[in-house]
């Protein structure tokens, strides 16, 4: 399977991966997160697992489970750690610990290395087998957390051997090594593979999105931090001068009970505009997302807070100009005027949209440069390379590792 990346990744990458793989061949690694489908973490793991395996690493993926109260608690943690004020009750904290204890009993955590993704399963550290090296992989921005939640989680986090963040500014003061690794997209996945034009046409027809005018697109969960209402406001400003369509395609994840509330707000903002399409897609709608991104004229990721925002890399890989909120990982993916634009308001998004719609050559240039940049920085091959490098480093540094 690795060979299929030879012509997609930068030159020499596949050979480097094989060389790195030899250094950790036969080692066991377990990934643990809280959902098998929906959300960027699950998506990345689905693609990374077979590649680790091909390189001779004994890799497994375990998923924690929990009650509705557990998911409400972890959604609250997720928002609170990203700076939003949340009310987390004592029962919710207790349920978090209980659910993690139950998961620890149910899951097979026996491996030389463990990568525990995000806050949901962080308390599994209580069940770390003797001699194992555990890494906490934090995909979200915890730089300005709600203190009550961080105070609760920190004692678990500091017992890990290392932490991994997506950006330096996401990290916290912690008494353990903190590594910096960007997440990635897979150019061969259903969501990113090349699609023939007729297949794109078919999918858009099925989704009821005509291709008669420029399409502005945002693909993301209906989550307040993704600011779908702000996207509608930007579209309304653009619409005054340019006839276009807006597509808001939102997936939902099993650990995201707040989505329905946000969706209702968006529907209210859109009212009955026939040129706005709200598409509720299941977590498996990868082909649909691929086709929508390829059909789009401009792609938005107008988040106000963001972990990394991999929908940006997806759009860059498809050669699309992207307008994103100036936050989180969007700022390392969008180099203003080179691969896209970053904005801080609906007005900013509208201004950049109008500029791009008026200048097709600029759109093409940003698209071309964006694809090249994504090839080097945001493909799964670079991600795998850095994970392998980290395992090699940790096994040298920690004698038991």
């Amino acid at each position, binding site marked *: 399977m690795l060979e299929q990346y030879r012509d997609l990744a930068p030159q020499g990458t596949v*050979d*480097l991966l094989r*060389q790195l793989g030899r250094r950790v061949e036969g080692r066991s690694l377990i990934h643990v997160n809280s959902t098998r489908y929906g959300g960027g973490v699950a998506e990345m793991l689905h693609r990374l697992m077979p590649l680790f395996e091909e390189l001779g690493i004994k890799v497994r993926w375990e998923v924690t489970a929990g009650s509705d109260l557990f998911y409400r608690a972890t959604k609250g943690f997720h928002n609170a750690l990203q700076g939003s004020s949340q009310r987390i009750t004592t029962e919710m904290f207790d349920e978090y610990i209980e659910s993690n204890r139950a998961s620890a009993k149910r899951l097979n955590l026996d491996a030389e290395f463990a990568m525990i993704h995000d806050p949901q399963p962080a308390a599994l550290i209580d069940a770390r087998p003797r001699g194992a090296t555990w890494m906490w992989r934090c995909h979200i921005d915890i730089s300005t957390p709600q203190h009550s939640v961080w105070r609760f989680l920190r004692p678990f986090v500091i017992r890990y051997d290392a932490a991994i*963040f997506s950006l330096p500014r996401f990290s916290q003061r912690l008494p353990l090594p*903190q*590594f910096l690794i960007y997440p990635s997209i897979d150019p061969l996945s259903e969501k990113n593979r090349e699609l023939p034009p007729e297949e794109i046409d078919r999918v858009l027809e099925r989704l009821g999105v005509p291709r008669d005018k420029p399409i502005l697109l945002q693909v993301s969960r209906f989550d307040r931090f993704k600011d779908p209402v702000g996207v509608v406001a930007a579209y309304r400003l653009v619409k005054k001068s340019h006839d276009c369509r807006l597509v808001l395609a939102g997936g939902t994840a099993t650990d995201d009970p707040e989505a329905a509330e946000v969706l209702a707000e968006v529907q209210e903002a859109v009212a009955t505009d026939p040129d706005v399409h709200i598409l509720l897609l299941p977590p498996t709608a990868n082909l649909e997302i691929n086709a929508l991104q390829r059909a789009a004229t401009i792609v938005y990721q107008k988040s106000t807070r963001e972990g990394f925002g991999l929908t940006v890399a997806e759009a860059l890989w498809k050669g699309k100009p992207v307008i994103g909120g100036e936050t989180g990982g969007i700022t390392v993916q969008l*180099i203003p005027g080179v691969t896209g634009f970053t904005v801080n308001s609906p007005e900013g998004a509208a201004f950049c949209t109008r500029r791009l719609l008026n200048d097709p050559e600029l759109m093409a240039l940003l698209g071309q440069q964006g694809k090249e940049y994504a090839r080097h920085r945001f493909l799964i091959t670079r991600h795998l390379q850095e994970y392998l490098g980290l395992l090699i*480093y940790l096994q040298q540094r920690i004698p038991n590792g």
Partner: protein
Amino acid sequence: MQGAGMIDHYARQPFCFSSCMELREVLGKRAMDEHRLLELIEEAPADSIYYHTHSYYLRHAYTQQLYSNDFANWIALYAQDRVLGERLGVLDPFEFSDIEQLRNEIVMILADHLHHATTVARCVVSEPFEFIRSHVIEIPLGLEAGSLWEFREALADVEVGAIFNHVCEARMRKKPLSMDFAYWLSSAEGLGLRELALKVERVGRLGLSLEGMRIKILRLCDQELARQRTL
């Protein structure tokens, strides 16, 4: 291109090409103004000074900023101190034989500038300077060169991380220097070509990208091979 009838001179020890990958570690130390930056530069681990003065070469061209060291870029862009940015920006990391010498020079320039500054420079945007250090994982490529011709052919084809490894890493972080292109070209175990080695050593100081360094070293090898053919 290898001349007919030419006898290749073989080294006692072949040169083994290795590429490398950079693993970045966030140190959790942030500076919001130039005074704090100076304090942190004084106490940062050498690997962090190395990262902020050498990793430029490994970055994609789209993200490379005006200067090749991060301190100069941050000072010019965020602390809005153009003069100090320029004084640090002109520093050539290849002029120094080790990281401590380079650190001392940076500290001296910063301290001197701040001592003579008439106003207290402040960071005007909320973008702190984040101290990072790199751990470089070496990746042997299984590629060896025994003669100058073999060296030239391998260099032309090798993955670009290998240029970084054998030019930057070898000089500043690895002791002894047996992984350094110039060292192997000049040493008795290598090819004993001292003049060529001197020219190759200077390539690092031309302010070139890694691809630029590759092209320049290839040209120097070709000139030497042409010279040998005339002997």
